[in-house]
């Protein structure tokens, strides 16, 4: 499979008071198209920081991070916005839906930024809502949805533009077990159908059960990087 993310010697430091806090230390990793991979580790181990840098929301202090052939450290604001808009999808622990828009409009948003023609846009939004099984809720406002439905809208919003990479930061942390499995199955299916690379940050056991590659972080260091062989039984 094609290599789409290369990380070489990545270190990330944050200024804290007069000194510096090192959140990621000398990380080197590579990811291929279609991976279903998770960063796991205790709170504070650097999972979110790593995901944010891959998502070009943050920049490396040292080292080289290349996403789809673009060096994250050297992108202008405009270029990184374009990269996110066209090739990256984000899913957050708190869903981050826009409260004043309907489900349909939330999903449509990313495509409005791409200035897609109306008909194409409509079809893409309806497809995305169908993937997550929320066609009948498209006129609801986020406040009218259950937690599981809210996160499914977020998945539809991230997937509607068919991004190459989807970054999900603790997507199940606010969900009960049933809903967690539901969205994980949905994501797994999209991963297989669309060849989207999924990268999770999680410390949820349920998520780990679905992952095909688990990268363990501790204090900003990769301590384990293991492929899960396919004999694992998928729950649900």
């Amino acid at each position, binding site marked *: 499979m094609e290599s789409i993310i290369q990380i070489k010697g990545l270190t990330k430091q944050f200024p804290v008071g007069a000194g510096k806090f090192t959140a990621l230390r000398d990380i080197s990793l590579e990811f291929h198209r279609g991976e279903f991979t998770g960063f796991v580790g205790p709170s504070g181990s650097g999972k*979110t*920081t790593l995901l*944010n840098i891959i*998502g070009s*929301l*943050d920049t490396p202090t040292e080292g080289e991070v290349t996403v789809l052939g673009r060096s994250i450290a050297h992108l202008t*604001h*405009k270029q990184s*916005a*374009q*990269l*996110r*808009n*066209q090739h*990256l999808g*984000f899913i*957050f622990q*708190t869903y*981050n839906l*826009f*409260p*004043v*828009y309907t489900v349909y*409009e939330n999903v449509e*948003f*990313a495509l*409005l*930024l*791409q200035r897609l023609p109306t008909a194409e846009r409509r079809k893409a939004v309806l497809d995305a809502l169908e993937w997550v099984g929320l066609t009948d809720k498209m006129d609801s406002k986020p406040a009218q949805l259950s937690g599981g439905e809210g996160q499914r809208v977020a998945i539809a*919003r991230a997937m509607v533009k068919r991004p190459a990479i989807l970054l999900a930061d603790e997507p199940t942390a606010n969900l009960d077990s049933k809903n967690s499995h539901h969205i994980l199955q949905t994501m797994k299916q999209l991963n297989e159908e669309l060849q989207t690379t999924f990268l999770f940050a999680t410390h949820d056991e349920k998520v780990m059960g679905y992952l095909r590659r688990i990268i363990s972080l501790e204090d900003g260091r990769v301590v384990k990087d293991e492929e899960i062989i396919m004999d694992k039984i998928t729950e649900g």
Partner: protein
Amino acid sequence: MLAFKLAFKNIFGAGYRTILNIAVLSFAFVTIIFYNGVIDGWNQQARRDTIEWEIGQGQLWHPSYDPLDYFSYQDAHGPIPEGMREEVSAGRLTPILIAQASAFPQGRMQGVLLKGIPPGQAILKIPTHELEAQDGQVPALIGKRMAQSIKMKEDDRLLLRWRDKNGAFDALEVTIAGVFDCNVPTIDGGQVWLPLAQLQEMLGMPGEATLLVAGEGFTPTGNTGWAFKDHDYLLADLNKIIQSKKGGSGVIYGLLLIIALLAIFDTQVLAIFRRQKEIGTYIALGMTRWQVVGIFTVEGAAYSILAILLGALYGGPLLWYLGKVGWAMPSGSQDMGISIAEKIYPVYGAGLIITTVLLVVVSATIVSFLPARKIARLNPTDALKGKIQ
């Protein structure tokens, strides 16, 4: 366009505070238009009255005449220039002769200006036909302010004393033939209007005048030594007072506008703080920071658009009504030295409305932009965590 769509969605989604902001801003908007409408209405009324009652289509002045210098009146008279006599007899010029005198109403003495004007003139609205001589009495016209101050009414008799051209005192009793009602104080207070021929005879200045008022159809030609004063010159004082009035009322509605703008500014600062996650999400979804600044700025500007629509909704009928029934001026304002009617009918010109709309939209956009600008320097990961400030 996307920004506008988002802005209106967010505004309507935001509820209570929004309504307050829009209400205050619309009130400022309506007030600005009203205040300026009153002043414009007053300006138009004052100009019209001054033209119709005092200055006509311009005036030709005797070289020595200076209306601000009472001492000049003694010498400011002379024969109507040769070239103008035809215009006078054709009714395109009305000669006026001015002299200082004393009047003795109820035994008190008061300085007055005597103004001689042909009874048959039709250029000024002053009802000079009432100066046609009747049964041997000498008719005089005064304005309502003068009538009030010397406590006289029609048919009352007023003793006048003046110096003729040789400096000799003379006196005469005139009969008030009429009291005219006009809003131009400079032809009213302290003035007694007499038939021109009568005054010329009293002063011993036959065929002389101080100034000539032009009517429609008069074109100033030839050099007669008498200077032609056009509207620009004669209305300069009026324009100055109107401008200063505009400045004065500007303070009032400026304050109102500032309050409204502060409310929007405050709302924006709060919104940016409360909606950090939303801002972070916009950026994660692929907006540039400046696009997000744009969303928030347009949101503030949209307040002004809604405020204008709301203002049009209630202000439109209200202002229209006030334009119909007029706006009563406080009684003291009659003594300001320029024409002011008891009731002003506000005039709302297209220029006024467009300027005000622009003022409101531009200022609301600026105060929305100022806090929104901060977003451009925002760290999206901090915003997503809600960690700013």
